[in-house]
């Protein structure tokens, strides 16, 4: 079987409140989901009545009809959503069920905040590909801090990209990759979890 055109890996690093590494998990991503194909398909379509499942900028799960010129763009790094956005870029959740290609959301997304069960999302750091490298890779990294006062369980991670309805200037996030960790992680109060997705474009 030839190499896929596009593959992904994830790396999870857990640190305690003192910054000591307590756990590392690195593995190939198993689950690009159907949303990714819908976004790809978008390039070849217009005036379709088909919809894609997304999250709006308020965090509501909804659908949007791809009837307007739309595109993938950097909702993850736009100025208003650089920090504290649990929807764009790296997502983490507490669910442990196996991902389904047709399921467009994490099982149980952990929201941004300092309340029990919440984590503080930071900036999505994205590395650019190099024209001279073969294969080319892109890394998206997010470090979340547990300021909730207690431990928080992380069982699933995901990667979401942005989607814009160009004519209405409405922005959405669409999950494209969803992975379940080998076992749920209990992140202690004051600790951090750093999640990195590496997308590799193969030749």
């Amino acid at each position, binding site marked *: 079987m030839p190499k*896929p055109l596009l*593959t992904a890996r994830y790396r999870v690093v857990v640190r305690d409140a003192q910054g000591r590494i307590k756990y590392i998990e690195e593995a190939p991503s198993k689950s690009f989901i159907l949303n990714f194909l819908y976004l790809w398909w978008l390039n*070849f379509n217009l005036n379709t009545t088909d919809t894609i499942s997304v999250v709006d900028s308020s965090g509501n799960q909804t659908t949007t009809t791809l009837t307007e010129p739309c595109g993938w763009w950097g909702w993850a790094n736009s100025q208003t959503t650089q920090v504290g956005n649990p929807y764009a870029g790296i997502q983490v959740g507490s669910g442990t069920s196996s991902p389904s290609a047709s399921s467009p959301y994490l099982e149980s997304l952990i929201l941004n905040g300092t309340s029990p069960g919440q984590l503080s999302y930071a900036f999505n750091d994205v590395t650019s590909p190099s024209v001279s490298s073969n294969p080319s890779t892109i890394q998206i990294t997010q470090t979340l801090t547990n300021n909730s006062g207690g431990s928080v369980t992380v069982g699933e991670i995901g990667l979401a990209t942005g989607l814009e309805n160009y004519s209405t200037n409405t922005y959405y996030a669409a999950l494209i990759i969803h992975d379940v960790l080998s076992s749920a992680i209990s992140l202690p109060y004051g600790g951090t979890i750093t999640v990195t997705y590496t997308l590799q474009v193969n030749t």
Partner: protein
Amino acid sequence: MGIHLSALVLVKDRNGKIVKRRKLRLHSATYQFAQFMYEMFTAQVSPSIQYSPITIQGMAVYTQAPSAQALTPSAGGVLYLVPISSTFGANGTAAQVMNPIIGLGNGTLTFSPSIAQLAGPILIYSAYSSSELTPNLTEASPPGAYANNPSISYASFYFSPAIFQNNTSSTVTVSELGWYAALYLTNPVTSFNTLMTHDNISPSISIAAGGTLTVTFTVELE
């Protein structure tokens, strides 16, 4: 695990008889593909993240075969992946037809991620000059939510010139296959296609005079 892209090529003679059928695995992604993926997560209006010195090898094709052109987005420029018709006009217009999703060539190329064009691009169709292959537009179909093998079939894409007719009086040889994506840049305002994959076809495929070549792209989740 990952994303696979393949192409089914079907050659028929002038009488509609199938003379060749081959499935090709497309596995040579260009730097543009990586750049395109990068844009998914970073393209934004803030000048704090600069595009420069990133250079996208774009192409603008209306009356000529695909050619590489350097395009350097300016600060603040947002790059969109767009429906090809919104970039190049309504279905069936010359501009749209001339910006192919599927690129065919008669050359051979030693692959490098930095390539931005086919070695010997074949002029697909032009209202303004002689043509070698004439496309036929076909209908679109959405991705299917199949249990373990979701896929999109490009065969039925609305704006893909998936069927190519040889209206010349001689055989046309195809030895290269490329996939292009339609993009739109806000600064400077530019609509263009860019080469995402390139693969040599060996042995090459011959389309006899009056014959047709059907190319079906399929994207699959593995």
